[in-house]
């Protein structure tokens, strides 16, 4: 006997991006900034928040214009909207902190080509209401920020012995320099993917056992 399918609630819309359909650990999207700017927790948080802002704004605008944009020019229009918000973010970060802008470098501009944003615009915002699209953007953005922080935290602790610039081990800790180099990004991402896949496999096993008992 199968359960009747229910429409997703607002909470479901938000939670899916954070965990069940996490853009990094489940969908493996936007790998370029994930690997490049996750060498410190601060950079990871800033990049995550910048991406979340662009995602939410682009989703809101694209969803509200979905009846106005002809199918033939939709991708060009989406890119135009996304690039606008990325430019806005770039100026705002520069106004807030020059050091942060320097640390994130070209990767702020590269948010334009982050497939996560265009993907959500095409797959979700162009087919759903503004409120649902904003919730989707918030959830996916929070999931992306969470994933970047997971990587940035581990890499900064192991690679520099600090977290958010606060020294954790003081004298005597030998930094694992490799962790803040690109290869450290791959190692950490692989480790987190392993954790997520194990959790997913365990959940599926439990669901199968429960279904068997119920039948």
């Amino acid at each position, binding site marked *: 006997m199968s359960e009747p399918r229910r429409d997703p609630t607002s909470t479901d819309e938000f939670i899916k991006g954070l965990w069940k359909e996490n853009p990094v650990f489940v969908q493996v999207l936007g790998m370029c900034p994930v690997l490049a700017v996750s060498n410190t927790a601060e950079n990871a948080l800033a990049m995550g928040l910048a991406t979340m802002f662009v995602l939410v704004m682009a989703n809101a605008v694209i969803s509200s214009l979905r*009846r106005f944009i002809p199918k033939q020019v*939709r991708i060009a229009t989406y890119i135009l*909207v996304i690039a606008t918000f990325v430019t806005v973010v770039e*100026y705002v970060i520069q106004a807030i902190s020059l050091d942060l802008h320097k640390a994130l470098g070209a990767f702020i501009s590269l948010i334009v080509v982050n497939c996560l944003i265009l993907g959500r615009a095409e797959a979700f915002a*162009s087919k759903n209401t503004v409120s649902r699209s904003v919730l989707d953007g918030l959830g996916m953005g929070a999931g992306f920020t969470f994933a970047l922080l997971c990587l940035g935290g581990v890499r900064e602790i192991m690679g520099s012995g600090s977290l958010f610039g606060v020294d954790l081990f003081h004298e005597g800790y030998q*930094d694992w320099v490799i962790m*803040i180099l690109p290869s450290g990004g791959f190692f950490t991402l692989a480790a987190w993917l392993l954790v997520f896949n194990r959790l997913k496999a365990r959940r599926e096993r439990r669901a199968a056992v429960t279904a068997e008992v119920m039948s």
Partner: protein
Amino acid sequence: MSGVAPNIAEARPGMWPMYRAMVGVGLVCGLLIVTVFQTTLPIIERNQAEALQKAVFQVLPDARSSRTFVRTGEDTFVPLEGKGKGAELVYGGFDEAGALVGVAIEAGGMGYADVIHVLYGYSFDQEAIVGIRVLGSKETPGLGDKIETDEAFQQNFVRLDASLDPATGAAAHGIVAVKSGTKQNPWEIDGITGATISSKAMADLLRKSIGSRIPLLRDREIDFHDRENDLREGEATP
């Protein structure tokens, strides 16, 4: 909250809806960018000026005030009025009495990953580099970026000999980077283990900058005076 909303315009449109969408969205996006740019520009410029000012005091530790000078076509230096984009700038540092303690100069050279930009302080009295600050670099994190973060490496620039030969007016010694722990002369830079290329790049860019800029600056030392001095001169002139 309602469920799934109707899809994007499915019908094949004529040219007008496409122009309307692209031009309309483009115009609104352009307006938004211009508004944000105009709003943030003064803040960004203020941040940049503050960062540069902070860097000048960092590389000229004895300075209490600073003033920006620009090189003229006649190879003299005059106080900068307005923006000096593209011009050759020198930052003069002055003590409490208004006497020149040194100049801060921007220099750049190829590092391991990309160009390294630095600001260094030069003292005419000591004939030495008295401080340095990396303004921009993309050196390898954890290795090459120690040129910014390693305190032992920074100690090289507390007083790095950059004297000029009185006979020729050119640099008396070429600044060189040596293997870590083998520094013997005051014009040598004790390199960083694991970041040899970045250490050498720092020595190269400083040597080239000293050779090309200090002889002229030394000759035109008289051009550098603070604002108070200008006022005093103004009052003395009948």
